[in-house]
């Protein structure tokens, strides 16, 4: 069953306008794959009407998962008001996640802003299975660099940029990405896992293409059903239109017509 209610264990602010919600669900903890998302009903009435897609951020243990979300508008603000002990109605896990069947020697995670959310789950799963996990994370300001200590804690090597220079290098994370690929002194295979704003994903795809490293990107699109039924969420690919909620949200970067 995709449709479930899950109890909220905690729902805490972790950065300005960013919350981490932990849900109790053995099924979700068992079934979720990195890159997949939950489609969440934020309240029982008709306004707001639609569900909100939020990625699985981490599997906390065998019966807990967590979400990391920013309060953007009405829906996520309502979500942030939920208290522990309340139940929420979720559909999921949905969509096609990152392909972790082939483990690289070196994993490069490229995160922009809230893009850190699903990538932490990737890092969790790759931990111990790859020689190195490097997180390249960029944000507008220092406050936007999310979950950095969590990534470090599970052994990721973290490189940071901010647009205002308040932490890490000043600039865009894609600049650092190019440098990371250029600088590569250690050998071995590389795979790139990326999530962030569309322009950043496009740039990441281009760079990965130039250096010829396999790269997957997680995309966002406005969604109604989340199940592949309504055709709201399409993205143009070399094989025609695909649904972000079903064939995505994670796509091979060379598949997308940017």
């Amino acid at each position, binding site marked *: 069953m995709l449709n479930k209610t899950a109890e909220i264990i905690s729902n805490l602010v972790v950065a300005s306008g960013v919350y981490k919600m932990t849900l109790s669900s053995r099924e979700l903890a068992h079934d979720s794959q990195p890159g997949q998302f939950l489609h969440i009903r934020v309240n029982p009435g008709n306004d707001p009407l*639609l*569900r909100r897609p939020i990625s699985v951020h981490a599997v906390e243990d065998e019966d807990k998962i967590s979400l990391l979300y920013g309060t953007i508008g009405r829906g996520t603000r309502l979500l942030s008001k939920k208290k522990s002990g309340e139940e929420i109605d979720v559909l999921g896990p949905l969509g096609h996640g990152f392909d972790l069947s082939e483990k690289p020697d070196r994993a490069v995670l490229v995160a922009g802003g809230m893009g850190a959310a699903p990538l932490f789950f990737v890092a969790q799963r790759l931990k111990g299975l790859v020689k190195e996990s490097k997180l390249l994370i960029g944000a507008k300001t220092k406050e936007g660099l999310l979950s950095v200590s969590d990534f470090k804690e599970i052994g990721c090597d973290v490189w940071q940029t901010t647009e205002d220079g308040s932490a890490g290098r000043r600039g865009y994370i894609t600049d650092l990405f190019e440098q990371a690929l250029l600088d590569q002194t250690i050998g071995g295979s590389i795979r790139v896992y990326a999530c962030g704003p569309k322009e950043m994903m496009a740039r990441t795809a281009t760079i990965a293409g130039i250096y010829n490293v396999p790269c997957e990107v997680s995309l966002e699109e406005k969604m109604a059903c*989340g199940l592949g*039924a309504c055709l709201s969420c399409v993205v143009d690919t070399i094989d025609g239109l695909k649904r972000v909620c079903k064939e995505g949200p994670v796509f091979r970067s060379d598949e997308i017509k940017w």
Partner: protein
Amino acid sequence: MARMAVDVAGIRLKNPVMNASGTFNIREADGLIDIKRLGAYIPKSITLHERTGNPVPRICETSSGMLNSIGLENKGVAAFIDQELPFLARAGVPVIVSIAGETIDEFAETVAKLGEAKHAQKTVKAVEINVSCPNIDRGGVQFGSQPEMAALVTAEIKLVSSFPIIVKLTPNTGVFVEAAVAVEEAGADAISLINTIFGMSIDIMTRKPKIGRGYGGLSGPAVKPIAVKMVYDVSRAVNIPVIGIGGIMNAGDAIEFLLAGATAVQVGTANFVDPGIMMKIISGISDHLEKTGCEDVREIIGKVEL
């Protein structure tokens, strides 16, 4: 248990609940609903040729509703016949195929092609003619809002096809009753309404419409009172069955449409909120009949007391 079967366009449905075209895909419904319990299943509208649809964003949320401008993305009738019909033939649910087009010829040709297909006569119980899509440049609403055009499409399709014909009307006109009467005279076997209502939302910071195409069609509970009124008006003006659509979120809403005069209902936007909702609506109608002492769902059709 009250009897739930109704007859629409010459088809006997085991209950009056089906999905609205474009809002539910039984290929993706596995584990969410028991398809065999549906009164009927209607796939997304198909056209003669493949269509890629409109630019994203294709939807946006509004107060108790949503706008969409999918733009009839579909692979065309030939692909439908090849790839979908065999699957639908085994699905165990009566199938009503929704057809859209930009010209009368296109409509007629699409229905004709469907009629010639191998599994079609057995699997397809009726055809729903979508002369009311607000999201395409030609055809669509333009047909549905002119009674003569709607009648002409209906008559032409009747000529080339033996399928029972359901004409899906648009709310974007003041002359929907006239359109209903005209398509009845032209041979329609049933009428369904409403399709979506033209709407627009603007992001005040970017100043851009929230829908890629600029505007879209409004659906969801926001439009329910408008739809109930139209179903009421139309069901009193025609002698063929009317299928009520628009903002049905629960069994109570479905019953409201039946009382207003609908013989059956279609559930659209609600599927996005709760993909299991159609099952709950079927049970809910049955419970309501039981509770109010009705033995047959047909006892309540059109029974609003003015």
